[in-house]
């Protein structure tokens, strides 16, 4: 067999080989990205994501989009610019949500008995679909960063509103008024994050009452734009195919 000969024996076999590799690559990429994204997200925004009583109108809305736009931006930088696949953000978020849901059900509930309506993960899908759609239609990193990044921050709270709204209704308990989510937290004591650690509704922003969530979302969108740019270039770096010589090690 000469060096110019193919490793396959027919066009049909070439197609079959190519498709088989596609599945193996997708499997590996999905689970490695899932693992990296999940460990990143749980340790930068995790506490707001774990518990309903952390899911407030200010810090959850601010922090979660900022720390979660990272991997989608990086993976888009590889999948779109190399393969014209407009699914980078969606793959990341699907992986993250799969990992989170398995965990919340099997471990938060199945092992340590926190009810699922207290420890459900945040919904990032609307932002991911927007980010991929803007990239597909615009074909521009700058447009995706500015419009998509802003949309990523703005759509986070509305995207979670139907889920969280029933837990934000006020209740009175022992003469105090707080939300139903706060009441859940009051009953489900967590030894590792006592109340003095809980970071919700802090600062003067709450003085403005109804404006807290939109202002937080707008600020989050602004930072998400910057983070998108940064992580786009991280993604390009991680997608490199360079070799170094053995002596360099």
């Amino acid at each position, binding site marked *: *067999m000469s060096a110019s*000969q*193919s*490793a*396959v*024996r*027919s*066009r049909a076999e070439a197609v079959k*080989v*190519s498709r*088989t*590799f596609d599945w*193996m*690559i997708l*499997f*590996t*990429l*999905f689970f*490695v*990205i*899932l*693992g*990296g994204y*999940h*460990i990143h997200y749980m*340790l*930068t*925004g*995790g*506490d707001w994501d*774990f518990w309903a009583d952390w899911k407030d109108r200010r810090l959850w809305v601010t922090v979660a989009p900022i720390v979660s736009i990272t991997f989608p931006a990086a*993976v888009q930088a*590889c999948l779109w610019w*190399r393969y014209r696949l407009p699914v980078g953000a969606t793959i990341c978020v699907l992986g993250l949500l799969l*990992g989170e849901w*398995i*965990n919340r059900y*099997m471990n938060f509930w*199945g*092992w*340590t008995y*926190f009810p699922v309506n207290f*420890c459900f993960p945040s919904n990032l899908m609307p932002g991911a679909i927007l980010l991929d759609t803007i990239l597909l239609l615009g074909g521009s990193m700058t447009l995706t960063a500015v419009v998509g990044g802003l949309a990523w921050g703005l759509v986070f709270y509305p995207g979670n509103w139907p889920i969280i709204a029933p837990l934000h209704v006020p209740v009175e308990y022992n003469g105090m008024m707080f939300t139903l989510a706060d009441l859940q937290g009051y009953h489900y004591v*967590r*030894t*590792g*994050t*006592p109340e003095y*650690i809980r970071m919700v509704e802090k600062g003067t922003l709450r003085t403005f009452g109804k404006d807290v969530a939109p202002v937080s979302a707008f600020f989050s969108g602004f930072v998400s734009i910057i983070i998108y740019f940064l992580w786009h270039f*991280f*993604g390009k770096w*991680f*997608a*490199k*195919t*360079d*070799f*170094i*010589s053995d002596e*360099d090690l």
Partner: protein
Amino acid sequence: MAATTESVKADAAEAPLLNQKNLWLGLLLYLVFYSFIRWYEGVYAWSAGLDSFAPEFETYWMNMLYIELVAEVVLASALWGWLWKTRDRKVMSITPREELRRHFHHWVWLCMYGWAIYWGASYFTEQDGTWHQTIVRDTDFTPSHIIEFYLSYPIYIITGVSSFLYAKTRLPTYSEGLHLMYLVSVIGPFMILPNVGLNEWGHTFWFMEELFVAPLHYGFVFFGWAALAVMGVVNTEVMSIAKLIKKDLA
């Protein structure tokens, strides 16, 4: 006609390009093993894992830690040693078809790496979060740590390094030089294990609570980013495989 018959016979005798049995058995092995581990946690974390000074903690958890540490060192030495010892010293002279077969085998390793990363970085790491909200911690070696740090992380490290060694010793693509992103995608997640030293030091001397977003945990985050380097490996593989199957058909 005779030549055609010979070639058909050769095809029939030839090993398949992808040994699917290896792939499915490998994935199943991890699934069954980790299901057993999860069952063990469910039973013995509650009954014997709450008080590290109790004798049953020594029996069910510390002994498990000792066994897994020894088993991991033995397994890593044997597997990595075998991969290096049996390396192909004439890797540049293999046929394109053999090279393709090895790429498939390499991807079996990479699928296993992805699967192992999922269990370690996602399943058992977030699981640790909920265990810390449930007990009052009195040791670095909590049941969840004995599984997460000292079992699931070493398993993905052993799998990842094996995958790298397979590529380096058997594929022409990787024989000359070191693929930078392959190194990052294996060494980065590996560094999460030494970073446990920082984590335990910090929790022991500074910060007893388990706020997951505490800066003490950012070392894990930084090294977790290295998972993205798998994109560099994918890009290199796609180029190599495309070159192999796009050449003139015989």
